[in-house]
């Protein structure tokens, strides 16, 4: 863990750390609007995840932040300074590309030292710094290796070291974990978060995987079709989604029509009404004509006994998930819910009853 502190001491181009902000950014490609009036802010030391399905505009947003795309409208600022039209090579940002974009004709060390070479740092200094950066990502002594000889995880670390060694003003990462196999991915999540924290600059990363976002990010910005749906902490997005779309994308669960009663909502399934505690999105209307409650698997209870106030249903799928079993249960009116239970004795085609726990359940407009 030497590169980052060293980077801080040897600061070259302005040491004051500023917030990276995109203000009302729009980017069109012909008729297609890839990014539509998106505003996000990342404070120094903060990790913001841009999350969305493919085609949601998250990568274009990142490229606008990096300077590879110039927005049609809106601005990019760093520490309050407008950098919208500053070329990528003058931004001093560290970027990690999805496929890492390591130069195949240079060994590891030259790849890492490339940004310093571009800045005219002399050979001795840049080798020292490159080695320190490699050590900080756990790749001591790998400097002479060919890029082709590295595993996916090692390539990812080299790409990160290359981005860190230039003492970046901000870090941008495009799907940094998507090319890793699942086991490595779990381990790299923790490492990545620790390393990004240490650098202490705004860090913006793109992912389609909400689990990555949950594990790494301080805040999440959820994009769909180029529009920002919601941004907030992972907890906020999970427990207080502001729309049906957000609730559907973040976390598992069923979205079921309900009748809005203010602090509660009534859900009717197969004629059986239940009045549920709900949380309403911050600053939303006091009444939704078209309301839905979000039922997460951990907010429901499964029982093999028929309960008086429970919904009756049939187990259509049973999945063992370690400490709990996840049952998929078909209720009346074709409603399907997932329920997490420590009880393992229900089986497919068994009749069960499902009752809501005490909540509160997120209530979203339709």
């Amino acid at each position: 863990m030497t590169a980052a502190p060293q980077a801080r001491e040897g600061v070259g181009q302005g040491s004051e750390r500023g917030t990276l902000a995109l203000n009302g950014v729009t980017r069109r490609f012909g008729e297609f609007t890839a990014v539509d009036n998106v505003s996000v802010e990342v404070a120094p030391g903060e990790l913001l995840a841009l999350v969305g399905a493919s085609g949601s505009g998250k990568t274009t947003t990142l490229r606008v932040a990096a300077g590879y795309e110039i927005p049609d409208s809106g601005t990019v600022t760093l520490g309050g300074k407008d950098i919208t039209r500053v070329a990528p090579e003058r931004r001093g940002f560290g970027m990690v590309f999805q496929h890492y974009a390591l130069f195949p004709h240079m060994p590891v060390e030259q790849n890492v030292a490339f940004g310093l070479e571009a800045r005219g740092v002399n050979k001795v200094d840049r080798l020292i710094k490159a080695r320190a950066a490699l050590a900080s990502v756990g790749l001591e002594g790998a400097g002479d290796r060919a890029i082709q000889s590295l595993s996916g995880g090692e390539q990812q670390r080299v790409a990160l070291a290359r981005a860190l060694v230039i003492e970046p003003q901000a870090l941008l990462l495009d799907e940094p974990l998507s090319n890793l196999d699942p086991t490595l991915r779990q381990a790299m999540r923790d490492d990545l978060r620790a390393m990004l924290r240490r650098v202490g600059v705004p860090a913006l990363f793109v992912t389609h995987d909400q689990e990555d976002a949950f594990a790494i990010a301080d805040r999440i910005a959820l994009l769909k079709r180029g529009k920002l749906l919601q941004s907030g902490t992972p907890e906020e997005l999970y427990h207080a989604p502001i729309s049906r779309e957000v609730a559907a994308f973040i976390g598992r669960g069923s979205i079921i029509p309900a009748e809005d009663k203010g602090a509660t909502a009534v859900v009717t399934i197969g004629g059986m009404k239940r009045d549920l505690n709900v949380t309403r999105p911050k600053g939303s209307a006091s009444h939704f004509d078209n309301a839905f409650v979000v039922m997460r698997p951990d907010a429901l209870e499964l029982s093999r006994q028929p309960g008086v106030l429970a919904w009756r249903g049939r187990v259509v799928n049973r999945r063992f998930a370690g400490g709990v079993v996840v049952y998929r249960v078909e209720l009346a009116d074709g409603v399907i819910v997932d329920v997490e239970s420590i009880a393992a004795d229900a089986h497919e085609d068994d009749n069960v009853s499902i009752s809501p726990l005490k909540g509160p359940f997120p209530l979203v407009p339709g």
Partner: protein
Amino acid sequence: MTSQQRQNWLIAVPVIALLLWSVIYPNAAVIAGSFENGLGHWREFLASPADREALRTSIVISVASVFASLAIGVPLAFLLGRFEFPGRRLLRAVATLPAALPPLVGVIAFLFLYGESGVVTRAIQRTFGMAEAPWRLQGVGAIVFVHAYTMYVYVFLFVSAGLERFDATLDEAASGLGANTWQRLRRVTLPLLMPAIAASMLLVFMNALGSFSAPYVFGGGLRVLSTQILASKTNGAMGLAYVETTVLALSAVAGLGLFRWLDRKRKYTLASKGGRARRTIRSRRIQRLTSIFAAIIVVALVLPHLMVVLVSFARDGSWTTQVLPPEYTLENYRRLFSESELWRPIYNSVSMALIATAANLVVCFVAAYLIVFRQFAGRGLLELLVALPWAIPATAIALGLAATFNRNDLATGRILLVGTFWILPLAYFIRDTPLVASAVESSLRQMDASLEDAARGLGASWLMTMRRVILPAARPGLVAGGLLAAVTAVGEFVASVVLYTHSNRPISMEILAQLRALAFGTAAAYSVLLILLVLLMTLAARSFEERLA
């Protein structure tokens, strides 16, 4: 020996024997011939100032052609690959046009345009009221000029393909790390394109070294190895011709080795999901300048073709001191098809090209099949045999044939072919073998090797497997390779000039004969016909491929 191995040998032996006999034997005979009186011929070669000059000039021309081609091909590939400007599509469409000119035709076109009595030369002379032509299209400069025009296409195509495969994110990564345009070009783009550039340099070098038509027509008093060989042979100094041929072949092999060595460190391949989008030039002024520049190049590239077409309608003997030919007629074309002596070369070229191509298709298919799918002791040898003619200049191949197949002697495997119709198809066959074999090989390599086993496992006979599985997989390579072979053979000049006789003279030799007789119109009409034949074969191959695909 398993039955599989027996079968391998049964197919491989005739192919290997044929190639040993037609490729190795003649060249070995040339080398042996150079030592027929000990080191005598070699001393003669070393003592001859003309030969030393020829060797030096050959190498100077080849190296200069490489750099001239780079100077045109690389910037053009970048311009067309990276920038968007008005006229880009037109320039892209004509950029490869010079490659469509058979070698001798390109030379003639340059003669009509830039020769002492060429159109451009005379126009400049008249405009500025000069007493003499402003330049003479002669010597090293003229040869390199023509080479650059016809051979830059290799550089352009290779670098364009490299740019297309170039991973745009590498460039972006470099700029994100703070590298400016020049630093990116020097440290990232050019090093990554180096394999493509080196491969194209090698191609140009080999072509320039073996080139015959430009030195033959523009050489003036200049000697190069390929023309020296023909001169020695014509003078009956066969021993010296053998030495010169050996030296030429060795130069080619040395060039091949040098470029392989230069490219030795590469361990990576350019593989990406596509290059970056072309950038529109923003500055109006630069955009206009680019378009003007593009227009000039388009004219320069198309002019030789137009010139040949124009002259093909000129009445023979009418074009003397005028800038443009004064009288136009359809007579030249009418005579080609009505006079049997003029029709003869067309018939010869087409039939000899078809025979050579048919043989190429059969032999190269079998060879490629063995190389790709079968494991046997002779595989390495077979690979070498099909690739070897590529490294040997055509003049050397031709002289080898002339030295070997000049009498009937079954004990030493010689049959009399020199002076017969068959010597030229054999020469064409040898020249085009590497081309066709590598095309078929690359088609077959794309096929999953287990398909053959799967077909056999399903009960298909060997023949049915061939017909239903292997041949369809090889087809794109057979069509592309066959087309290339036919196109090269129908306009072939370099080997023909060494081996032709009056009765089997191909179109290229007849063009030369007509030029010598100052029948420019007829020579140009043959040239146009040759271009049309190439076009026709290309269209035929394409429609055949489309119909089957």
